[in-house]
């Protein structure tokens, strides 16, 4: 077959025609420039994605700080304020719905589409979802007594969006990251139902 193709070398599409093309160096510089530009653009897209990723992680750090400080100060997160809660003394109580709204706003600003915020009781390993991308958590009444530890854990999904749009087949998958803070409950429930700092 090769011999036959070699004999019909001038025929377009034949093997010899390809060899002739390969020997012809015209335009090779332009091809190299184009390939170089493509590599350069991909590198720039990668840098852009890394910047975006850092910003998203920084935003998540803010969300974690917010949820942990609120849940620590309130001694947990409840659907409604506990009996005896005085807004003038302790500040406005943040309900589960308030916290979910706040988290949703922060996540949409950070362009994070999938997330899950949980509070874990390290004593018995109970995990309760406070907020997630699909909607508010179950709204459990979580109360941690004074000095009891609680772990605020956030799971979120990030990816290299710009570079995955540039590539013909989207083989760059998103990956799940996780961050957590451990805080102590700051309120003591008295026998008469009044919370004390």
């Amino acid at each position, binding site marked *: 077959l090769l011999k036959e193709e070699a004999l019909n070398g001038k025929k377009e599409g034949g093997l010899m025609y390809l060899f002739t093309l390969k020997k012809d160096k015209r335009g090779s510089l332009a091809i190299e420039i184009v390939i170089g530009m493509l590599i350069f653009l991909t590198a720039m897209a990668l840098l852009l994605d890394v910047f975006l990723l850092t910003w998203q992680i920084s935003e998540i750090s803010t969300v974690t700080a917010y949820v942990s400080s609120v849940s620590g100060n309130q001694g947990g997160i409840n659907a409604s304020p506990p009996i005896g809660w005085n807004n003038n003394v302790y500040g406005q109580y943040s309900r589960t719905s308030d916290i979910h709204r706040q988290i949703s706003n922060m996540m949409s600003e950070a362009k994070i589409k999938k997330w899950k915020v949980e509070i874990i009781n390290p004593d018995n390993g109970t995990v309760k979802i406070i907020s997630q991308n699909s909607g508010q958590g179950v709204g459990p009444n979580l109360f941690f007594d004074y*000095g009891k530890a609680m772990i605020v854990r956030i799971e979120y999904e990030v990816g290299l969006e710009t570079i995955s749009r540039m590539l013909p087949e989207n083989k760059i998958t998103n990956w799940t990251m996780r961050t957590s803070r451990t*805080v102590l409950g700051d309120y003591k429930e008295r026998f008469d139902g009044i919370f004390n700092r």
Partner: protein
Amino acid sequence: MEYSIGRTKLSKLTRNKTGSFSILFVILIFILVVMIDFFVNILIFKTTINEIEGLVNSSADSAIRFSIDSASHRSNRYELDEYQLRIKFEDLVSYSLRDISYINREDIVRVYIANINTSTTGIGDGNRLRYQTTADFVVELNISGRLFRRGGLTIIRVSKRMVYSSSS
């Protein structure tokens, strides 16, 4: 003689432009890789330091509140359990570090409180003396490059000052 032959060969090579663009191409890619490594490292360091600072802030806050004896405070006395403060702070930091994806626990060298000082010179409204606890919460973190490993010890020192006001 050998020198002249070498020189001729060298001048021939200089005049021969074949592959000159490829060399530039390789140099460009190398510079790009170094640049990407540089930026990625800077961003990883920044993110890690941010996270550790936030972590230390929340852990220090919880630990210091827990270590002040609230029962004594109701009787206008200020008592801070320093031992408990140290233990709680270390526990809270190490608990939190278990679940952070982008920080290796092996990179944390030491978690400690450098000094704890309690005085009555706290600043507050009015002319009353206020109790003040000053403590330096420290996390020592080993930071090294990701693509090209470079060892080095970077100490992150976060100082947390707590002003505790007395009712007396």
